[in-house]
């Protein structure tokens, strides 16, 4: 057998193996990526926790944590839902704004305000593992 014909017999197998290896690798995230994304997430959750206990978030020194230790009784898994006191279906950030305006006597935040995103990240992180239950009362 010539050197060339041996190569032809091996080639399909090698090609298949290469394809399998390539397709498995193509969709995998690197550990470096995962760690970077996790760090980004954790830093926003931590920023949310800092806001949760920040006497300057409103105007009267009252903090979210005073009534909601560990963000308990916020139930992020139940939104969107009909909020009977507001008379319509709302998302969690709208309820957070109600708290900012009333008990904290402060100003509402825009939905995409980094502080609003951080507050929701913290609340949701404290509730991790609880099944989604939108619309629940």
């Amino acid at each position, binding site marked *: 057998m010539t050197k060339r014909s041996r190569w032809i017999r091996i080639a399909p197998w090698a090609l298949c193996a290469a394809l399998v290896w390539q397709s498995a690798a193509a969709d995998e995230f690197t550990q470096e990526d995962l760690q970077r994304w996790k760090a980004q997430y954790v830093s926003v959750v931590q920023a949310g926790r800092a806001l949760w206990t920040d006497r300057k978030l409103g105007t009267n020194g009252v903090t979210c944590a005073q009534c909601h*230790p560990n963000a308990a009784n916020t139930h992020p898994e139940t939104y969107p839902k009909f909020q009977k006191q507001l008379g319509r279906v709302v998302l969690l950030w709208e309820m957070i704004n109600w708290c900012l305006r009333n008990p904290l006597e402060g100003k509402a935040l825009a939905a995409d305000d980094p502080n609003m995103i951080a507050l929701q990240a913290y609340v949701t992180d404290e509730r991790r593992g609880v099944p989604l239950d939108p619309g629940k009362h």
Partner: protein
Amino acid sequence: MTLVEFAFAKDTDNFALAYISDAHIQNIKGSEFVRNWDRGLIRAVAETNLLNPPPDFVMFGGDLAQLGTKAELDHGAEILAALHAKVYYVAGESDYYLDLGDYWSRLFGPQWYSFDHKGVHFVVLNSVLTYEDWTFKRWPTAEQRMREMALLDNPNGSPFMVGEKQRAWLADDLKKVRRNTPVVVFSHSPLQKIYRLWNFWTEDADEVQALLKPFDKVTVIYGHVHQIQYNQIGHISFHSVMSTAWPFPYPQSYAQAESYLPKLTVPMNRADPFFERDGTGWQFVNLATGNADIYYNLYNNAPRNVAFNPATGQPEDTTYQASDTRTAPQQHY
């Protein structure tokens, strides 16, 4: 706020006391205070002054202030000064950790003491002490120490305790009390262990309970938890009082933690945040039998009755029953 009624063989010996707790008066700046918390205490004082029969005295259950400042304690004391009856005080952590109770004691007197009133022995404890290292060595400023302890869910906090010195005082104080005398103990934190990380907990609760064990009828009434709790351990009945400021969630509503809420306790409904007094109602406590029967007046919910059941020897909710035959309370979010 709570009305505690004591009834005895002779009608002339009957008496009532009122209980107000956890006002958390919070200074914004200068002479500005958080309106919502002010209103809760002002309302409790007004309603106490309208009680019939009028209470022989009023207990204040601790956490008059939010961050222990003179401004907050003075403002709170000024609101309480409108009470017609004599007031006895319990110290809470939010009164204490700025100056370790110095200004509080100048206003209100000793932090632990006892007195007898018409056949009942009353004991007041400071149950919010903690380890010396945490108190004296951990924090660069008194203000930071106060803020760290005022934050309920703070992993940098430290568990409450009565401490060896006060337990020795209590043992000595109880020596002169007959075993069949009803004993009522007032503390800020629960003298039982429920959830450590929110300090629904007293580190040396077991040791304190051991000192109370010999007495036939003991009732411990505590604040701090801002919610309905009750329990029975041996001859000791435990009852919490609600806050005039805001309600706390039950520890089991925190998904990441395990708590030991007494099996007897039927949780109260979740408060409606849009009604700022909801979940901060007040209680009448009737001790006519020597055990506490409590009627909870909940502003936005049906009233609740927790009465001592002589057949089972424990307090039970007369509507929602004991844990094995329980009608669940409303569970709305």
